[in-house]
C-alpha cells in the first residue's frame, strides 16, 4: 500500500513537472549579445554577398548600437549548422533552409522583402537552344541550384511535378546540383547543361549588372510565385534585440536615399514582418517531396 502511494506521488510530481516545463516560457539567456553575428545564404559568391549586405549591416549596427559581423558560410548546410549552433544570431535563410532550422529548434522569422512574398524561379536555356517548351528537353542534362535552395531546387522540382508532371531523375539524362544560382546560369550559358533553374531575382540582377548577357540565356519558363527568403533570429535572442532588429528593417524607407541604397542592393523596396505561417505551403511541399530532413 505504501509503495503505491509513493509511486502516485512521484507520478503526480512528474506530471506537474512536465506541465510546468511545457508551460514555462523559455528562460531567456542572459548572455550578452555585444556582437551580433549575421549569416547569409551563400547563393552567390562572397564578393557579391559582401556588396549586397554590407550597407545593411552597417545600418543595423547604427540602429541598434551593437556591432555586427558577417559570418561566411561555405554552403547552405554550413549556414544551417552555424545558425543552429548559435554561431550566427541573425540569418538570411532561404525558405527550405528556414524550415529545416525551424525543425531543429525554435527560430523566429523576423522580416521578409516584399519580393520574398512572390518569389519565382526561371528555367534557363541557352539562347541558341531550339527548345520551346520543357518537354523538348527530355533526356538532356539539367542542373538545379543548391540542394537546400528553395528557389534553386525545392520549388522548381515541385512545379516540374505539379505543372509538367516531370520527375527530373526520370526525365533528364543528368541531374546536377550547381550549388549556387549564378553557377547554374553559367552552366547553361557555357553549355554544360541544356537546362538549369535559378532564382529569378538573382538572374535579373545578373542581367542588370552584366554578369549575364541577354544573348547568353533565354527564360523558357517561370514558376508560379511562392514565398522564399526570410531574415530569422534565434528564439534565444533577447526580445529587445529582436524588436530593435525588426524595427530597423521595417523603418527602411525607399523615400530615404540612404535607405534606398540598402534596399536596392538587397533587391527590395520595403521590408515586411514575416511569420511562420508564410511558409506553411512551403512546408507542405517540402514534406510531400520528403526533403525536410535535417542533414
Amino acid at each position, binding site marked *: 500500500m505504501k509503495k503505491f502511494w509513493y509511486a502516485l506521488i512521484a507520478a503526480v510530481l512528474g506530471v506537474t513537472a512536465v506541465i510546468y516545463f511545457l508551460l514555462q516560457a523559455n528562460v531567456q539567456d542572459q548572455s550578452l549579445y555585444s556582437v551580433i553575428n549575421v549569416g547569409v545564404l551563400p547563393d552567390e559568391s562572397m564578393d557579391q554577398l559582401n556588396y549586397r549586405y554590407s550597407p545593411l549591416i552597417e545600418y543595423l549596427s547604427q540602429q541598434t548600437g551593437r556591432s555586427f559581423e558577417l559570418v561566411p558560410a561555405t554552403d547552405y548546410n554550413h549556414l544551417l549548422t552555424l545558425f543552429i549552433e548559435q554561431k550566427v544570431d541573425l540569418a538570411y535563410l532561404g525558405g527550405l533552409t528556414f524550415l529545416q532550422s525551424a525543425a531543429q529548434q525554435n527560430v523566429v522569422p523576423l522580416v521578409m522583402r516584399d519580393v520574398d512574398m512572390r518569389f519565382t524561379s526561371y528555367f534557363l536555356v541557352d539562347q541558341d537552344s531550339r527548345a520551346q517548351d520543357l518537354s523538348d528537353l527530355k533526356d538532356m542534362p539539367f542542373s538545379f541550384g543548391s540542394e537546400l535552395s528553395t528557389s534553386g531546387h525545392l520549388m522548381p522540382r515541385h512545379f516540374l511535378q505539379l505543372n509538367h508532371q516531370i520527375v527530373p531523375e526520370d526525365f533528364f539524362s543528368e541531374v546536377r546540383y550547381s550549388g549556387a544560382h549564378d553557377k547554374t546560369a553559367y552552366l547553361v550559358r557555357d553549355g554544360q547543361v541544356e537546362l538549369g533553374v535559378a532564382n529569378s531575382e538573382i538572374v535579373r540582377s545578373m542581367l542588370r549588372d552584366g554578369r549575364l548577357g541577354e544573348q547568353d540565356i533565354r527564360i523558357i519558363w517561370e514558376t508560379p510565385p511562392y514565398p522564399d527568403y526570410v531574415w530569422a533570429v534565434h528564439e534565444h535572442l533577447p526580445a529587445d534585440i529582436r524588436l530593435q532588429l525588426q524595427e530597423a528593417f*521595417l523603418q527602411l524607407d525607399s523615400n530615404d536615399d540612404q535607405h534606398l541604397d540598402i534596399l536596392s542592393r538587397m533587391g527590395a523596396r520595403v521590408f515586411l*514582418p514575416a511569420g511562420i*505561417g508564410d511558409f506553411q505551403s512551403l512546408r507542405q511541399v517540402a514534406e510531400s517531396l520528403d526533403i525536410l530532413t535535417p542533414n
Partner: protein
Amino acid sequence: MSTSIKANWARLIRQYVLQLISLYLILGTIAISYNALQRITSDQLRQIANDYHLKSNNHLLKAIDEIRLIEYQLSFHLAESEPERARLPESLQPDQPLNLSSSMYVLDSQIEQVLELHRQYPDILFDGMVLRIEQQLANLQRAVTRFSANPQFAPDLIRGLTGLHTPLSQLERLHEIQRDNQLTRLSEREQRDSLIFILLVCIALLAGVISTWRMMKAINMVIADQLQAEQRIRVFSQVIEQIPVSVVLTDTDASPIYVNKNFESASGYQSDEILGKKSGLIQSCYTPPTTYREILETLADGRTWKGELHNLKKNGDPYVEDAHFAPVFSDDGAIEHYMVIKEDITLKKMQEEKILRQAHYDNLTDLPNRFLALDRLSQHLSEAERKQEKVALLFLDLDDFKKVNDTLGHDTGDKLLIEAAERLIHVVRHGDTVARLGGDEFIILLSGLHSAADVLPVADSLVEQFRRSFSIDGREMILTASVGIAIYPDDGDNASDLLRNADSAMYSAKEHGRNVFSFFTEDMNQKVSRRLALEEQMHGALERGEFNIVYQPQIDLSDERIIGAEALLRWDNPVLEQVLPDEFIPIAEQTGLIVTIGEYVIEQALAQAVTWNQLNPSDFTIAINLSPRQFRDPNLVQFITETIDRSGLPADCLELEITEGVLMSGHAYIDEAINRLSKLGVELAMDDFGTGYSSLSYLQTYPFNTLKIDRGFVSDITEDTADRELVNATIAMAHGLGLKVVAEGVETLGQLQHLKTKGCEFAQGNYFSPPISADQLTSLLQDQAANRARLDR
C-alpha cells in the same frame, strides 16, 4: 467463509478501490485545474486574436484600400491635367473623383480605430510601427494640405501616401502574423492540453492496470491460500469422518452445522435431522438444564468442558457419552464455533459397573461380597460411634454344607446357597446388610441398635429360616445354620476385632449343636486363644515326647477279670500342663496331627499289648480309638497291618473303637478300610453308642463286633428310668445283633450289678480302675495272674 478470509477480501478490495479512487481524484483534479487555467489563457489569447489583431487588420486594410483608392484617383486626377490621361481606358477610371477630404476622413477614422485598439492592447512589438503610422499620417495630412493648396505638391502627396502605405502594410502584416502566432499557440496549447490529458489518462490507466494487476495477484494468492485451506479442510474432513468418535460442530447458538458419520451411527439421528436445530447437542432430558447452561457458559467463556452425558438414541435406547466440549476460535481470537467430541462409553460403563459389581457383589447370590461387607461395616461403625448406637455383626455358617456339596453336587449346593441367601434377606431390615463372605459363610450387619438384646429377634428369625426345609431339584433337605454374634462396641471397637469375635462366637454356636446362635463372650475369646495355643504346642509335641498313653482296664463282668484295656492318650505340655483329650483331640483332628499321633498310639499300645498278652494267656485285647481324620489317611490300614505283623500280636487282640462320626461321611474309602481291617481279624467296636445320630443301619452295614454304651447312659442307670430302659434295650439289641457290649463309666456297684443282671459282658470305669500307666496295668495283671494261679490251686 471465515471471518478472516472475509476480512482479507474486504481489506484487499478496500485497498485497491481506495488507491484507484485517490489516483483518479488527484489526476482528475490536476487535469481539471490545469484545464481551467489553460482555458482562461486560451480565451484570453483568442480574444486578443480576434478582438485586437483581426479588428486592427480590418481597419488597416480599409485604410490601405483607401490609400490605394486615393492613389488611383490621384493618378487619374493628375492625368486629367495632362494629355496622358487620354491613354487610359475608360474602364479603368475610378468611380469617384478625387475627394481628398472625405478620403482623409476615412483614413483618419480607420487609423484612429487602429490606434485605439493599440492603446487597448498595448504591445511593444507594434509600438514602432504605430509611431511611424502616426508620423506618416501627420506627414500625409500636411502633404494633403499643401496639395490642396497647390497641385504642384503632387509628388509630395504621392510620397506621403506611399510613406503611410508602407507602415500600414507592415502593421497589417504584423497583426496577421501575430494573430497567426496566437492561433498557432492556441492550437499548440490545445495540442499540449490534449497531450497532457492523454498523459494523465495514460497514467491513470497505467495505475489502474497496475493496481488491478496487483489486486489480481493478491486475489490469486488469497484464492490459492483458500484453495489450499479448502484442501486441508477436505483432508481433515475425511479424517474427522473416519475417526471412531462423534464430532459435532455448532455455531455460537449451539446449533449444529456439521456432524460426522460416527455421530449418526452413535445417536441414530441422521445429520439432516440434527443440523440447524438448536440444542441439537443434547437429545434427551437426562441431562439437566443446569448442565447444559453450564456447558454453554464455559464455552462462551473460551474454556473447555469435559464430562459425561446421558442421551437417548433415536430409537429410544439410552447411551452414555464421554463428551469434550471446546470453543473454536477464528484467526482474530473471536469464538466462531463450538465443537464437541463424544465417545460412546455405554459399553465401557456397563463393564465398569459389572466389574464394580463383581468387586462388590457375590456372583452367585447377588449379595454384597466380603469387600463391600467390610466397607459397609466400617461405615456402620463410624455412624454408630457418632450416633451412640450399637452395631451387630452376625456370622452365619451353614452346618455341614460341605456334605451337601459332596453328596448332591455343586449345582444343588449353589441353588441351596441362593435360596438361603433369599431367606436371609427377607429377615433383615432395609438398612441392614446380608453378605456372603465365601463358601457357606454369610455375614449380617445390623445397624442402629440400642442394645444387644435388639439382635435377638433377628437372630431368632434367622435361625428360624432354617427350620423350614429346602426344596431343591425335587429333594427336600434340612439345612441348619450356626450364628455367631458380636456387638459393637461391647465386643470390640474395630472391624477386625468384631469379625474375629463373631467368628469365635460362631464356632461356639457350632459346638453347641445345630441351628443355634451364640453370643460372643470373653471366655470364648479365651477358648479361641487356648485353641491356638494348643495347636501351636501340639506341633512337635510328639517329637518332644509329651504324649503318653494310659490304659483303662476292661473287665469281664462274668468273672471280674481284666481282659483288656482301652488305650487313652494323655498330653503333658510344659506350657499348657495337662491338656484333656476332649480339648486336644479335636484340634489334633483339625490339624491332621492325629495321624502321626495315632500311629504313635497304635505302635505303643500294640507293643504293650504284646507283653500283656504274654501275661494274660486269655488273649488280652487292646482297644484303640480311631478318629475320622485317621481314616482319611490312605496309609492307615497298611500301617495297622504292618504294625500288627511286626508286633506279632494276633489281629483279634486288637479292637478298634470307631464313633458314628467316622461312618457318617459315607465315604467309600472308610467302607473299604473298615472291611479290610475286619478281614484282618481286627475287632471293631462302636464307640459312644447313643450319643449322636446313632444310625442303626451302621450296625448292620459294618462288621462290628462290639458295642460300647456311653457313660452318660450308664451313670443314671440306677436313678433314671429312661436311661435304664435305654441301656436295657441297647444290650438286648446288641445281643440280638450278635454284638458284645461294653459299658463305659461304671462307677458304682449298683451300676455294675444292674449291668450284670442285664447281661452286659464287659465294663470299664472308675469303679474298677481309672486309666493307669502301662506299668501300673502290668502290675495289676501280674497280681491278677498270681491270684488266678492261687485260685486255680
